């Protein structure tokens, strides 16, 4: 029984090897390592999807965690592939040295390992440590370009997330206080499965208080408004493959923690956690929508789009019917497949034009046909047009809201989604036309195009024909999750 350890050891080994090898080899190590992680996690995840929980030592993997592990694996692999070309170009332009590139790959692998660690731990206390580790490790990636703006973003990222997560720890403390009361100091009072079974006998007052701290604390890291302020800064200043990782994988870590506590809270004090989730979700959606309309920087706009999608997901889980939760789970997958696609396409634009300002980018269709195609498709996908998978996620959550009789939630969500649609398409498509200023060369390369094509295929595939097996798995997770609610 070494299944879980292997998943974690692969990226660690890749990080160690990268530290002692030249930057080209380090890049290859990241790719091979990420692919190996994905393959290594399959047996555990498939077991978990069949309904069997893998739990031994300090590890605990069930269906929900497996879903997140696979998503992290896929996003990691895609980012590793894209990183190669992106950093090579940076190196050619003298923005970074080859030593920096090597350091990048070391930290990249550590980052993947720390995120995977979040999903496989049994104790919620240890999970907290892992989440804090993700912040600490990724800080080096956010501040990778040592420009003043990147440093500012890193500082804000570290400070705001650390404060948030400290508040989250206070919440966990309160949960522990009530559980150790019930269990009279027995060991394992912080273990997720023990907490879940004892949830009915936990003190509701204490748990409610704890959940407030937890949603504020981890919500900071998940990017819920009004604790989101670090997010656009960090996303816009980090190297593009890292922006994609932050958006499509890191936010999921905090989401995962919130979900675990939501289940416990719903058993102990029904309705409380769900209402908070819907409230924060709607607020995030509204604010993100407004900021997308006025965004000038393409990566900031994509960051706000992440906030928007996290809001939609929170609403889905907040509604809490099996249909809505199914939609939210699907939406997590859809968002994590689509967002990196848009980020990668945007990365090409940024490197080609040398700016992140959307006003200065014109004539994309002529100068970069391939990127333009990908950016266009990605935009349509992320704003939720059929046949892309984000559409299925959004429509299912809306259906769930209507089904549960929450018409006002459904209506507000729909309005904000349309708002985002308008802002997004206007900003992106105006970049495609017009005359480019000066010479622009499209960044080319197999390893740049491959992840985009794969992501596009996956998001279309999931939107058009979802495999029965995937559907069954998501349904069983949704039913299990709502069984708790």
């Amino acid at each position, binding site marked *: 029984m070494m299944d879980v350890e292997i998943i974690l050891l692969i990226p660690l080994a890749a990080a160690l090897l990268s530290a002692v090898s030249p930057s080209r080899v380090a890049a290859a190590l990241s790719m091979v390592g990420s692919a190996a992680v994905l393959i290594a996690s399959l047996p555990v995840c498939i077991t978990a999807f069949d309904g069997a929980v893998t739990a031994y030592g*300090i590890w605990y993997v069930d269906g929900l965690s497996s879903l997140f592990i696979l998503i992290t694996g896929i996003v990691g692999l895609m980012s590793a592939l894209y990183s190669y070309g992106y950093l090579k170009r940076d190196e050619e332009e003298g923005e970074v040295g080859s030593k920096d590139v090597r350091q990048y790959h070391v930290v990249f692998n550590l980052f993947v390992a720390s995120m995977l660690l979040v999903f496989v731990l049994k*104790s919620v*206390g*240890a999970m*907290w*440590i892992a989440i*804090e*580790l993700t912040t*600490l490790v990724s*800080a080096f990636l956010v*501040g990778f370009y*040592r*420009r*003043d*703006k990147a*440093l*500012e*973003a*890193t*500082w*804000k990222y*570290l*400070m705001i997330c*650390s*404060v948030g997560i*400290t*508040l989250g*720890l*206070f919440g966990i*403390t*309160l949960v*522990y*206080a*009530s559980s*150790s*009361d019930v269990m009279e*100091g027995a*060991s394992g*009072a*912080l273990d997720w499965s023990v907490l879940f079974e004892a949830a009915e006998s936990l*003190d509701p*007052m*204490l748990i409610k*208080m704890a959940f407030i701290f937890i949603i504020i604390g981890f919500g900071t890291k998940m990017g819920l408004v009004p604790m989101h302020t670090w997010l*656009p*800064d960090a996303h*816009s*200043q980090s190297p593009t493959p890292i922006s994609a990782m932050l958006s499509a994988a890191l936010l999921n870590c905090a989401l995962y923690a919130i979900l675990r506590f939501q289940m416990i809270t719903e058993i102990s004090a029904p309705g409380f956690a769900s209402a908070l989730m819907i409230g924060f979700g709607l607020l995030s959606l509204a604010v993100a929508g407004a*900021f997308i309309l*006025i*965004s*000038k920087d393409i990566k*900031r706009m994509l960051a706000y789009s992440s906030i928007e999608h996290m809001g939609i997901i929170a609403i889905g889980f907040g509604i809490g019917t099996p249909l809505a939760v199914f939609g939210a789970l699907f939406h997590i997958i859809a968002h994590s497949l689509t967002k990196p696609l848009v980020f990668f396409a945007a990365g090409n634009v940024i490197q080609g034009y040398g700016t992140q300002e959307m006003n200065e980018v014109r004539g994309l269709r002529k100068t970069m046909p391939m990127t333009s195609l990908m950016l266009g498709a990605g935009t349509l996908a992320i704003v939720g047009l059929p046949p892309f998978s984000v559409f299925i996620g959004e429509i299912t959550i809306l259906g769930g809201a209507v089904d549960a009789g929450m018409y006002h939630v459904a209506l507000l969500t729909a309005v904000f989604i349309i708002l985002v649609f308008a802002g997004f398409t206007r900003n992106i498509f105006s970049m495609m036309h017009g005359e480019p200023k000066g010479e622009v060369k499209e960044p080319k390369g197999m390893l740049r195009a491959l992840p985009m094509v794969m992501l596009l295929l996956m998001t279309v595939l999931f939107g058009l024909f979802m495999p029965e097996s995937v559907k069954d798995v998501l349904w069983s997770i949704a039913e299990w999750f709502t069984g708790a609610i």
Partner: protein
Amino acid sequence: MLLLSMLAMTSTRMTQLLTAFAVQSLFLTILAFVVADYTGHSELFIMGGITFAVKVIGIPLVLRRTVARLHTGKEVGSSLGIPGCLLMSAMLIIVAYLVTEPLVVTVETVTRNCLAMSMSVILIGLFMMVTHKKAMTGVVGLLMMENGLFLGVMSVSYGMPLVVELGIFFDVLMIVVILGLFALRISKAFDSIDVSVLRRLKE
């Protein structure tokens, strides 16, 4: 503990602030030993020991070094005067007592009052991060929040499992080192460690 938080809040010099933090940590250590002795939780002895090593000696030392290397002058750069700070702290304490009142009834431990105090320390730490301009005072604020947190952990549950505690300590130490590192980079890039210069990123 609370008094020291207030003292830190009103400190005008960096060294004074760090001393206040170290003494606060010392009190936390003593409290850990007392509670351990009283309840027979031997794990708390270990925890107290680590608190002493990390927070009373280790972190203040690291911070002193960083401050010395930053050459930023001794003032902490508070945007509120001392009376204002005291007033706000007092209000935060009242808020903490009000909020924790319904909880305190349910928790039966030797240190009932501690939950409210721990919340106060957390809030004051947060307040310090907001009002003080120098980057390093933010770090101290964060650490004081953590101190308050540990006070809370001890008061409501006699400490978390040891592995978790150790992990948290490790994380805290890492935060300080990494923040120190970035503070150095920032002071190089901006010629200042005043966080109010970090205003460039906006729409």
